[in-house]
């Protein structure tokens, strides 16, 4: 069964590698993954869809939680959360089916964002099953190109962020004046 894991990570080089490393080291294949900055530019939100053995699920979450760059991990597979995916789709049209394509797209709540004599670029969001259906339908009208964003999600309740407080290192303290680096 696919799991949806949502993470808050420090926006630093290597953060992504550490998280995916925990999964790849155990032979788990990532179905989809999105990363983007949060309101706080020093943090990123990651949404990962991955197929983990149910017996290993808690362990994998704990191992990810141990990573120094990871501030929060939530398993949103079963929790109350909104899940959406974006699909960008280009479909080739003929002169005859152009109107039908647009009507069909409308049924799926998709929007045309570009139009040319050869076809349309369409944009749709929804849950992955709905988007699968959308893609299947569009395939019947002509050649298509598809890019999907992977699942993103937001929990329906604010989860309190537990962070480690700063630690004072007495043995490093000094009576010498603090100087700024002058590179």
């Amino acid at each position, binding site marked *: 069964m696919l799991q949806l894991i949502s993470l808050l*990570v*420090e926006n630093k*080089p*290597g953060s992504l*590698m*550490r998280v995916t*490393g925990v999964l790849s*080291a155990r032979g788990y294949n990532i179905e989809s993954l999105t990363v983007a900055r949060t309101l706080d530019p020093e943090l990123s939100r990651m949404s990962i869809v991955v197929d983990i053995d149910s017996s290993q699920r*808690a*362990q994998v979450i*704990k*191992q990810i*939680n*141990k*990573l*120094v*760059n*990871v*501030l929060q991990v939530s398993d949103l597979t079963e929790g109350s959360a909104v899940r959406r995916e974006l699909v960008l789709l280009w479909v080739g049209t003929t002169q005859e089916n152009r109107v039908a394509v647009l009507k069909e797209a409308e049924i799926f709540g998709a929007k045309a964002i570009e139009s040319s004599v050869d076809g349309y670029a369409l944009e749709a969001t929804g849950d992955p099953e709905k988007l699968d259906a959308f893609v299947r339908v569009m395939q019947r009208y002509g050649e298509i190109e598809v890019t999907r964003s992977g699942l993103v999600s937001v929990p329906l309740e604010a989860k309190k962020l*537990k*962070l*480690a*407080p*700063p*630690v*004072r*290192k*007495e*043995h*490093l*303290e*000094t009576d*010498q*004046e*603090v*100087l*700024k*680096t*002058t*590179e």
Partner: protein
Amino acid sequence: MSTNLMTGAQVVLECLLREKVECFFGYPGGVTLPLYDALYDHEIKHILVRHEQNACFAAEGYARATGKVGVCCATSGPGATNLVTALVDSLMDSIPIVAITGQVSTKLIGSDAFQEADTFGITRSCTKHNFLVKKLAELPQIIHEAFHLAATGRPGPVLVDIPKDVFQAQGHYTPVSTIHLPGYRLNTEGHAGQIRRAAQMIWESERPMVYAGGGIVAANAADDLREFVELIDAPSVCTLMGLGSMPSTHPNFISMPGMHGSYAANMAMTGTDLLIALGVRFDDRVTGRLAAFAPHARVIHVDIDPAEIGKNRAADIPIVGDVKKVLERLKEAVRELAPEMKDKNAGARKAWWGQVRAWKKEHPLEPEMSTDEIKPQHLIAEIDRLSGGEAIVASDVGQHQMWGAQFIRFNHPRLWLNSGGLGSMGFGLPAAIGAQFARPDKLVFALVGDGGFQMSIPELATIANHALPVKIIVMNNGHLGMVRQWQELFYNNRLSAVQLDSFPDPEKLAGAYGFRGRTVESPRELRGALEAAVREPGPYLLNVRVTPFENVYPMVPAGGAINEMVLGPVQPVAV
């Protein structure tokens, strides 16, 4: 000093000084030239080893013997990749290490420059955390964070990769007094309610058993462990990583459990109704077939790492915390309940002790002896006699390691140093070097097989160089003994690639480095030869020819339950 302009290299050394690093182990190269130039007239001692892997193993020996962070250093590319085995070794055994590696200049990173390797990527899964420093301004903060991460929580190796131009850049040392790693959440205190419930469960238990491991050593909690064991008067075992946490001669101490554990330890683990697991990870070498492990027991599991709890065995009472702090509170909680609970299971407890003692008597761990040839167990018993529970024994990996764990007594933790989790051959000799630098006052044995010894043989030069009085005891059976044992028992004795011929003449070998060595073959000469080695003020290489086909028993075959031990040649016992 910090008011002057400094190079990045000098900043590194300043940071090490502030972290109270006395010495570190390393091997220079192209991109670390600035660091070694700064070291030229610096007070920190650098020990030049003969291979980078051994720099990290020696740092491990230093860290294991003291509890302080061990530091090692290597150049970019091959220097850094040579560290990998030892980094994983320290990760598996939770040993605090800071590894500093040089990297090609920031402008060259990614260009396949000479001696460039993606050290940051390669060591990601070999370390607790790693850093790639991009500019001088962040260098002090990163180095101090590295020490903080290495030493706190569940200790482990942290690598800092420093490009050459960062070593060369000029700036001022900016003192760091605060470490802020918001994602590094440590839960050290232990849940008070869980601790109370644990105390209750301990009193309710009829057949309690303490299972203590490397976490006790890491937390410096040996005294608390002993007091706790005495307070609840339970039999206790220490894992391979925990040996010495309970004094070996303590009446409550049984021995090591697991694949080569004693009969009594494994039977008691199987019979207990309450397993009090302290700083252990239910490793497969301890549990055997997990489904059959401690089948009647409820489990109290204390560990600093939440990911260890429930990983292999579900805990009835999980307690995340520093085992030292938890034990302090657990002792209190147990004492508080004593007046009402003390007599509840007194009869059952007495019967349990009777049973455990009977198991001990039934099949005691006793070294094999012979008057014609030196049995490997005989050699171990003689080392034990000379040590008297006080020497440091840095062991390599294999049969000698298991016999060492069975027969050498340790009065304290941090005396038995071995590669437990990773089982890295070649560990023993460099670890002994690190331990001897850490504890110049101590008698240090490097207990090695003829296989592992030859993996680290270049370090004889380091030993000679510093006239380190390490006593190298080669248990020489002419084979890769443990692999041979498995081939004999499980592969129809088809001995494939396990024979080690052409062992060098130890007298000539040690002589070539300027110290003494010899071979001993007769059991009558063994004791005298060992005593002479110990009397020698400098290093000594003693090659002990032991019987080649001895097997380590008891043995739990892979996949077996730990009470299904093979106690000796062809007489399986299932209970």
